[in-house]
C-alpha cells in the first residue's frame, strides 16, 4: 500500500485535498492510503523517518511560516525516498516546473486557485501513478546508473552502444541510442563491472556486443546497429569475429 503525504499550509485546501483523494481511492480502488496531512514540513520528514516506503507527496510550494520551502522539502524527501512521487500544488501559475522536475523528478504540478482544476489534477496524478506502478511491476529492464555532480541518470543497458574515453582524465563518454552522457569513470572498471555483454574492442572503446551489426575488416571498424562506426584494435580482431558470429 502506497502512503500519501500532504503538506499544505492552508487548512481548507489541505482538507479539500484529503477528502477528494480519499474519495478517489475508494471509487477507483487504488492500493493507497492517506498517511499524513499536515502543514509542517518537519512533521512530514519525521514521519518519513519512521517508515521506509515509497510514497506519494502532494506539496505546497510556498509554505508560509515554515523553515523550508517546497523545493527544499522536496530535496529532503528525495534523500529519504528516491523513488517516491512528488506533486506540487501551487497558487501561482508561474511555477518553475522544469527546474522542479529536473532536480526532484516532480511528477506534476497543480494550480489550487481553481478548485475544479485541482480536483481533476489530483485524480489525474493518482491515475498516472497507478499506471506507472503496474507497468514497473512487469518491467525487467536493467539500468546503468550514472551520477554526474547533482543528478543521477538511469540509462537502459540495452540502449547503450558503447563507452569511449576522451582526451580528459578519467572522462568517459556514454554513447546511447537516445543519449550522450559524459561522466567520470574508468574504462577498466566499467569493463569489469559490465561483464560479458560488453567487449573492449579498442583501448578507448567498450562496445555492447549486441549492438554490433558488422565488422569492417578493411577499415578496422565496427559497424553498429544504428549506423555508427567505432574502431577496433588489431589484436581484438579474432575475438570480435567470434563474438559477432556466435
Amino acid at each position, binding site marked *: 500500500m502506497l502512503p500519501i503525504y500532504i503538506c499544505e499550509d492552508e487548512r481548507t485546501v489541505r482538507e479539500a485535498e484529503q477528502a477528494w483523494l480519499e474519495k478517489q481511492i475508494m471509487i477507483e480502488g487504488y492500493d493507497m492510503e492517506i498517511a499524513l496531512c499536515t502543514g509542517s514540513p518537519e512533521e512530514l520528514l519525521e514521519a518519513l523517518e519512521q517508515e521506509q516506503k515509497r510514497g506519494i507527496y502532494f506539496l505546497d510550494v510556498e509554505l508560509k511560516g515554515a523553515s523550508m520551502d517546497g523545493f527544499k522539502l522536496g530535496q529532503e524527501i528525495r534523500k529519504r525516498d528516491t523513488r517516491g512521487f512528488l506533486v506540487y500544488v501551487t497558487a501561482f501559475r508561474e511555477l518553475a516546473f522544469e527546474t522542479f522536475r*529536473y532536480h526532484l523528478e516532480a511528477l506534476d504540478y497543480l494550480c489550487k486557485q481553481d478548485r475544479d482544476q485541482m480536483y481533476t489534477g489530483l485524480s489525474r496524478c493518482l491515475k498516472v501513478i497507478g499506471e506507472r506502478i503496474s507497468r514497473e511491476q512487469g518491467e525487467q529492464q536493467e539500468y546503468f546508473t550514472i551520477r554526474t*555532480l547533482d543528478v543521477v541518470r538511469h540509462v537502459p543497458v540495452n540502449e547503450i552502444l558503447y563507452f569511449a574515453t576522451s582526451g580528459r*582524465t578519467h572522462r568517459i563518454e556514454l554513447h546511447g541510442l537516445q543519449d*550522450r*552522457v*559524459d*561522466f567520470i569513470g574508468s574504462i577498466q572498471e566499467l569493463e569489469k563491472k559490465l561483464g560479458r555483454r560488453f567487449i573492449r574492442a579498442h583501448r578507448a572503446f567498450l562496445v555492447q556486443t549486441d549492438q554490433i551489426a558488422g565488422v569492417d575488416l578493411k577499415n578496422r571498424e565496427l559497424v553498429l546497429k*544504428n549506423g555508427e562506426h567505432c574502431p577496433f584494435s588489431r589484436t581484438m580482431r579474432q575475438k570480435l569475429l567470434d563474438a559477432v558470429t556466435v
Partner: protein
Amino acid sequence: MEFWQIVSANICGQTVSVGFVLWMCSILLGRLPDGSSGRRKKGIFLALFLVLVWSVTAAGCYLGGVWSWKYNLGRILWEYFVLAGYILLLRVLYRLSFRSCLLSAVIIAMLSAYGELLAEVFCYGRVFDLNIPAERLQYLFWFLLISPICLLFSGLVISKSGAGKIYSQWVQREEMGNRLVILIGLYPVFNQIIQWLPVNRVELDKENLLISLAFLLVLHLIFVYVGRDWQQKQYIAAQEASLRQQTVYIEKMEQIQSELRRFRHDFRNMMAGMFLQAEEGGLTAVQSYIQEMTDDFDRQVGDQVQLMNQLANVHMVEAKGLLLEKLIGMQQKRIRVSLEVLRPVYQVPMRSTDLLRCLGILIDNAIEAVQGREEGEVCLMISSQEDCITFRIKNTLYEAIDFGKLETAGYSTKGKDRGVGLSSYRKILENYDFVFPFTAVQEGYFVQELKIQQR
C-alpha cells in the same frame, strides 16, 4: 674545460631555464597544463629530452666556435633552435595552435632575457677564461647560482607586477595579423643583431649590456603600451555592450509598462461588466469573467513579466545580455519560449567568452529546430545549486536525430552548411575538466545540458 664538463654544467642551466619557461607559461596562459596525466607525462619526458639535446648541442657549439660566427649568426640560429623546443613543449603540454605556441615562446624568450641581462650585471665586463680553474669556479658560481636567482627574481617581478597579464593578452588574442606574428617571430634576429652591432663598431670584445638593456626596455614599453591599449579597447567595448543591453532591457520594460496601461483600461471595462453580472446574481458568469481576466492578463503582460523576473536572477552581465537578445529574437519569430532561473546565478568558473559561445550555439540550434513549425517550444533552464550550475536547453523535436553524426561538423537536419555549431561546442568543452555535457532525446524533446562544477 672538457666536453662532458660543459655538458653537465649546461644541463643544470637548461633545467633552470626550462623550469622558468614552464612557470612563465602558466602565467601567460593563465592555467596549468590540462589534467590528463598522459599529456603531463609526455611533457616531462620531452622537457628532459630537450634539456639533454640543448646541453649537448650548446657544448658542441661552444667548442666548435659557433658563438663567434659573424653577425652573431650562430647565436641567432641557436635561439631559433631553442625556440623550436619551446614551441614543441607548449604544443605537447597545452595543445595550442602553432601560432599561439610561437607567440608564447617568443614572449617567454623575451621574459627570460630580462633575467639573463640582470645576471650579466653581476659579471659586467668580465670575460671568464674557463681554462683557469679559479675563473672557471667563478663562472660556475655565476652560472649556477647567480643566474637562476636573477631568473627567479625577474619571474617574481613579472608575476607580481601584473606585467604577466599584459603579456598574456598578446598570446590570447585571436585577431592578430599574420604580419605582426612574423615580426614578433623575428625577435631573436633583432636581439642578436643589436647585441652584435656595438661589439664590432666599438671593438669591444664583450656584449654591450647597456644597449641590450635599452633594447629590451623599449620592447617592453611597446608591448605594455599596445597591450594596455588593447585592454582599454576591450573594456570600452564591454561597456558599450552592457549599455546596449541596458537600453534593450529598458525598452522591454517600457513595452511591458505600456501593455500594462492598456490592460488597465480593459480591466476597468471588465470590472464594470462583472459588477453588473454580480448584481444579477450570476455566480458562474462572474467566475468565468475572473478566469477570462486572469488569462488575459497572463497573455498580455504576465508572461513578459514572468520572463523578466526570471532573467533578473541572472547576475552575469554578458549572459544576461545574450539571453535577453535570444528571448526577444524568439518572441519576434513567434516561438513559444520559457525561461526558468529559480535561484540567482552570480558566476560560472568558465571563461565567459566560452560560456557565451556554448550557450549561443545551443540556443541557436534550438531556435533553428523549431522555427517555422507549429507548436514548437523552447525551454531554457538555469539552475544554480550548491556545488554546480546546470544550463538546460530543450526544444520540441520534429525529426529523428542521428546521434552518431551529431557532432560531426556539417551535420544538420536542416541541410548543408549548417551544424558547425555542435562540433565547436564540443571542442570548447575539451578545455575544461569540470564541465559535463549531456545530450538526449526525452519525451519528444531534444535536450542539451551543460553542467558546470563550482570550484
